[in-house]
Every structure is written in C-alpha cells, then in structure tokens.
C-alpha cells in the first residue's frame, strides 16, 4: 500500500508537471502514469465511500470509458453526502467546531482532500473533469467550456442530488399521486429518510474504526428502483440501531396525531408545510416534475378534482336555469334571433338540390371524349317518334304514272267500256302490278325475318277493313252473268251522303236559319260567279276551234 501510494503520488506529480498540449497526442507512457495516479486516488477515497462496490480501481486492460465509469460509481454518493454535510454545516456553523479531530497523517490528508474536493465545487462533472485532468484521460474536450456549461446546471443538480435515492424510488412508483393519501405522504417520507440517512452516516463515521462494511449498506443499491421498500427495511433495520432515546420514547407514546396529524383542522397547515418542502426540491428529472406540480396546493389531487367537478356542476346548473341560446331552441324565425346571427353559426340542413358540379379541366376533357366517342360510333340519343298504329284505312292513293302509256287510247277506252259492262273482269292496272311485285318481295323478306325471330312475333295491329267500297250495284259484283241487275248499291246511304250534320227541310227552318241559308247561298254564288267570269275569259277563243 505504501509503495503503491508513493508510486501513485509520484505519478500524480508527474502528471501535473507535464504540459497541457502533450495530453492531446496519444502517449502510452503518459496514459500509464495517468492510470496509476487514478488508481491511487481511487484507493485513497475508498474509505470514505462505504457503499462503493469496488475496492480498487481496475485499470489493467480497461477502456478509458470503463475506468471513468468506475470512478463515477464511487464519486456519485460521495459527492451527495459531502454536499449534505456542507449544507448542514452551513445551517449550523457551530457544529464545525464540534468536528471530530482526526489523527494527523493519512486522515488529515484525507480530510484535506475532502475539503479540497468540496471547495472545488459541488458539480460532479467539474470534479470529474478535474480528476480527468489530473489523471490525464485521453479526452480532447475543452474543459473550460464544460465548466461554464455545467455551472448553470449546478444549482438544480445540487438540490437534486440530495434526494437522488428517494427520487429514484418515486420514479419507480409512477407518481406520488397514485399512492398518496391521508396516511402516507411521500414528502414526509422523504424528509424522514433524509434524517435517517444523516443519522446513519454519523453513526457510520463513528463506527468506521470498528467496522469496514455493513451488510445492510451492501444491500442498498443506488440504482435500485424499489428504493422505498428497501429504505423502509433499512429504516426498520436502523430502528434497531437507533441510539437516540428520544425516538424510542416517541415510539412508545406514538399516537395517531403524531403520524397523521389532526383530522380536519390541520389539513391546511400540513399542506403549507409540504409546500415549503416542495419548493426546495425541484426535479431535473422530467417525470418527477409533473408529479410535483400535481401535488402543489393545499389539497390533494383528488380533492382538487372534486372541486373542479363541483364548480363545473354549478356552472352547468346555472346555465340550465337561464334561457337557452337561439341555436338550441327549436324552430327559430328571423325575428327571434339577433341580426346576422345565422351567418356566424355553421348551419347544417338538407339540400334538396344537388350542388352544381365543379367544372374542372378533367370534367370538360371527359365530356369531350365522350362526345367524340359517340360521334365516331354514331350512337346518339335521338328522340324516336313512336310509330302510330294505323287506325284508319289508308286511302287508296292513285299514283300518277308519268311514263308514256303503253296502251293506245283505243285500248284504254275499250278497257273502260269492258269494266263498265262487266265489273268483275277488271284487268290489272299499273298500280296493281306494282303492288303484286311488292307484295311478293315483301313476303320473301318477311319469311326471312320471321326465321330470325324464331317465328315468334307480335301479331299485326288490328285495322279495319282495307277495302275500297265502290258504289257499284251489289248484285252486279257478285254474279258473273247478271241476269237481273239490282239497284242495291254497295255503299250505305250515309256513306253516299255528302253533307254535314243534321239536314233540315225547308219547312223545318226557323226564320233566322232561313236567312242564314240565303246569305250563305249568296256568298257562294258570288264567289262562283267571279270564278266563272275568269274562266269565260280563258275559254273565249276555244269554242271556235272545236267547231272547225
């Protein structure tokens, strides 16, 4: 040990003497010196950290990062405890004098080292950096800048370090609001734990000469998230070690009020006390900050929630008593609502009209494409006239033949004469020939079409008799050789009748009707007279030629 310490100190001195820039370049000898120095320092500080798992700094074959981690492992709780002590001394300066005088030599050195460390600053990064500097770690970082950066955070970290363990314990629980109630208050618990820690550490210092390690200390792991239970177990364990009589006395006379205070009246006081506690502790860990904020105030979160709900209920009841806004009323005419209020409200009603289509380029392009396609196909939606069913007999229209007649005039008159004498022997006229040809052609076509439709077709529309009734003596038509010719004509008298409406006799007419008839007659006569004179003018020269 002594030899190693001597070597270590020598290494330290060597490091301090080297130039600053030489640290930038990798130098195996320098690194070896640094490692030795760091090992020395580590072992020097080891007695002050009872909870440290490492007895010795392991440097052989270890990475710089790994060495750093080891140092960190040792120095974290050490720093927190030191800070606590300094605070304590800051509050009670008188106790400094009560500090136990340690024997000179190692302990003095150790104390001095402690003071040195304390006075350098409470920032662990700062100290680490300095340690790094002293130990000559192979970092190319700019240490001064880091000091500046870390200075701002120092205040917050300082406070956080105190309740590091307890905070971690709360972390694991997921929020103080979840478990807190009238009986268990986490702030009180933390306070209690702090107190116990201090007592424990004081006891430890006392017992340092006697014992090296405590079993209970080893169980306590700083990174354990189930801190609360362990702390409680610790507390229980420590109760056994409790040297102070006051506590024992209190335990015997413990009452409900001691633990939980007065039931109703002291609620607010307790809350205020907690507030003070809370203000000191501010968390840099994000999760815990939120939980702390919840706990601010004189009441618990549940109570606050209740209050909120109550206020909301009151609000709603009040609103219900008042008359509703016009939007909530049923049918509202324009007179019953303020002017232009419908513009502000987003009205939703059924539109019976389809909204006009937005005409975009795509829409027009699609329409045009459809038009072009239809044109090329020739598929139009023309309105087809529905074919009217023939209800009347189509009149036989005599077609005028404008070709030269093949028969001579004599033959024509001969035929006419024959027809007159014997109506049945009517020769086929020009029209009939054409008709026959057409009917033959159509029959052929009809057969083919029916075959296409599998001979299932709609029946012909019923039309009346397609026959032309000539007013010829009936008997003459029926018999080939008429023995006697009857006067009975084919057409009925009403079909022969050429007039209109009800014919009145001369005797049946009234005076007005008679006058009317006469007037009509006169009019017709006059019109006919004009025509006649016109025609006479035309025919003036003709009679002469006929005679000649």
């Amino acid at each position, binding site marked *: 040990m002594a030899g190693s310490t001597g070597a270590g100190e020598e290494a330290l001195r060597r490091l301090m003497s080297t130039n600053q820039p030489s640290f930038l370049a990798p130098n195996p000898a320098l690194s070896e010196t640094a490692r030795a120095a760091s090992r020395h320092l580590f072992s020097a500080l080891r007695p002050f950290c009872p909870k440290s798992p490492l007895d010795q700094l392991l440097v052989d074959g270890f990475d710089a990062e790994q060495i750093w981690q080891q140092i960190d492992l040792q120095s974290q709780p050490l720093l927190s405890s030191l800070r606590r002590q300094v605070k304590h001394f800051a509050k009670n300066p008188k106790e400094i004098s009560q500090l136990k005088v340690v024997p000179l030599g190692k302990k003095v050195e150790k104390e001095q080292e402690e003071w040195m460390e304390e006075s350098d600053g409470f920032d662990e990064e700062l100290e680490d950096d300095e340690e790094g500097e002293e130990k000559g770690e192979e970092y190319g970082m700019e240490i001064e800048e880091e000091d500046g950066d870390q200075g701002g955070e120092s205040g917050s970290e300082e406070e956080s370090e105190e309740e590091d363990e307890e905070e971690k314990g709360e972390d694991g629980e997921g929020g103080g609001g979840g478990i807190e109630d009238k009986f268990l208050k986490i702030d009180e618990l933390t306070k209690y734990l702090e107190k116990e820690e201090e007592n424990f550490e004081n006891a430890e210092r006392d017992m340092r000469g006697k014992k090296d390690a405590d079993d209970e200390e080893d169980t306590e792991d700083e990174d354990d998230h189930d801190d609360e239970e362990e702390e409680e177990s610790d507390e229980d364990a420590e109760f056994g070690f409790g040297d102070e009589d006051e506590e024992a006395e209190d335990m015997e006379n413990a009452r409900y009020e001691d633990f939980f205070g007065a039931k109703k009246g002291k609620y607010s006081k307790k809350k205020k006390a907690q507030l003070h506690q809370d203000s000191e502790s501010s968390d840099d860990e994000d999760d815990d900050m939120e939980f702390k904020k919840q706990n601010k105030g004189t009441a618990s979160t549940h109570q606050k929630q209740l209050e909120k709900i109550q206020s909301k209920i009151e609000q709603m009841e009040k609103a219900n008593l008042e008359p509703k806004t016009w939007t909530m009323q049923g049918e509202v005419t324009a007179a019953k609502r303020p002017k232009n209020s419908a513009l502000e409200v987003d009205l939703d009603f059924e539109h019976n009209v389809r909204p006009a289509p937005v005409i975009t380029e795509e829409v027009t392009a699609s329409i045009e494409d459809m038009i072009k396609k239809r044109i090329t196909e020739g598929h139009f939606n023309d309105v087809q006239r529905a074919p009217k069913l023939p209800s009347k007999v189509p009149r036989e*229209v*005599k077609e*005028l*033949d*404008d*070709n*030269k*007649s093949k028969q*001579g*005039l*004599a*033959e*024509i*008159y*001969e035929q*006419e004469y024959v*027809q*007159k004498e014997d109506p049945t022997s009517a020769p086929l006229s020009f029209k009939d020939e054409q008709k026959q040809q057409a009917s033959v052609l159509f029959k052929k076509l009809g057969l083919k079409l029916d075959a296409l439709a599998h001979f299932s077709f709609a029946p012909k529309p019923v039309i009346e008799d397609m026959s032309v009734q*000539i*007013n010829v003596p009936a008997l003459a038509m029926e018999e080939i050789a008429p023995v006697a010719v009857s006067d009975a004509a084919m057409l009925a008298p009403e079909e022969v009748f050429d007039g209109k409406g009800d014919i009145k006799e001369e005797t049946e007419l009234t005076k007005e009707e008679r006058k009317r008839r006469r007037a009509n007659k006169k009019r017709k006569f006059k019109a006919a007279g004009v025509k006649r004179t016109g025609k006479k003018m*035309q025919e*003036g*020269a*003709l009679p002469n*030629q*006929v005679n000649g």
Partner: protein
Amino acid sequence: MQSNMPLSSMEVEAAPSEAKLLPPKPKFEPLKAHEMSDGQVQFRKVSVPQHRYNPLKKAWMDIYTPIYEQMKIDIRMNLKARKVELKTRPDTPDISNLQKCADFVHAFMMGFDIIDAIALLRMDELYVESFEIKDVKTLRGDHLSRAIGRLSGKGGKTKFAIENATKTRIVIADTKIHILGSFANIKIARDSLCSLIMGSPAGKVYSKLRAVTARLAERF
C-alpha cells in the same frame, strides 16, 4: 215516188177486187251511203303538212288498211296536191264513216299516233280540241319557251301524267296544243294545261289531277 205507185194501184184495184191478185209488198232496204246523196260520191280531202309527210309514208299501210277494209272508204294520196283524199264506195255502210275517217286522218296529221287516232274510228264520242298558248296567256320569248317546257315537263313526264290521269292524248306542237279524248276528259286536261301555262308548278297540277280523277273513278 216509187213507193206511192203500189198504193195507188192497190186503191184502184180494190174496187173491182174480183179477178186480180195483189202484188207482194215490196221490201226496201235501207239506203246506202252513196244512194242517200242521190248516188253521188262524197269526198273528203285532208292536207298533209310537211313535217307529217315522212311519218305518213311510213304509216301509210296502217292508215290505209282500217279505212279501206273496215270503214269501206276509198283513200288515196294525192302527191301533187299533197292531200289525202277519201271517197265513199257504193258498199260504204254508214254515211258517218267518211267523216270519221277524215277525222282520223286529220288527227294523224295533227301529230297523234295511229294507235291513238284509231280510237276516233272506233268510238263516237271522241273529239279533238286544239288551242294555242296565246289564247290562254300572252307570253313572249323566254316566257313562252318556259311555258312550253312546263307543259311537257322533264322528258315529257308532266304531259304523260296528264294523259294517263285523264285518258286523253295531248300533242304540243310549238305553240299549238291538241287534245284527243272524250268531252269531259278534254275539259280536265285543258284545265290542267291552262293552269300550267298560267304558271302553276307541276306538283300542284298533279295534286289537282289526283283529286279529279279519284272523283271520276268513284262516279263510275
């Protein structure tokens, strides 16, 4: 004169009425054509216009045969005078035959076909009517030509339409128009032609024709 004698003789002999028998009643046949005119032969002369000279030469036999055979009229062509001469024969059955034949030849000279003109020989009631365009309306130059064109129609179809509808035959010879047919039909044809001359379009004439002929057909 001859007829009176037997009467008188009968009357004279009626008084004694003892010994003489009466002579049989004479039977007299109807008078023949040429006897009617006191045995004198009757003539008709039909002049031949120059444009019908060649057609006459071609159709001479068609003219000659029915006239000579059926009508029993002598017919000859006087080349010098350029006339067709007709003469009754002793065995001409009817006195009107001559006139019919003359009309037939005359119709041919006007421009009608033989087959159409033959109808004159066969039927009594057929007549030929002629008039000029200027009788209807005074037209000059292009108007006249257009009127003639309107009358005939394209390829003569208007004329044929009228002919077929009214059972007549029409000859349009420049400004002269001749219609052959029965009286009523001539009238209808004449009306149609006059309306065409006056300027009505052919379609209108057709529709009128249709209506008229339908009425005509119904009448019979």
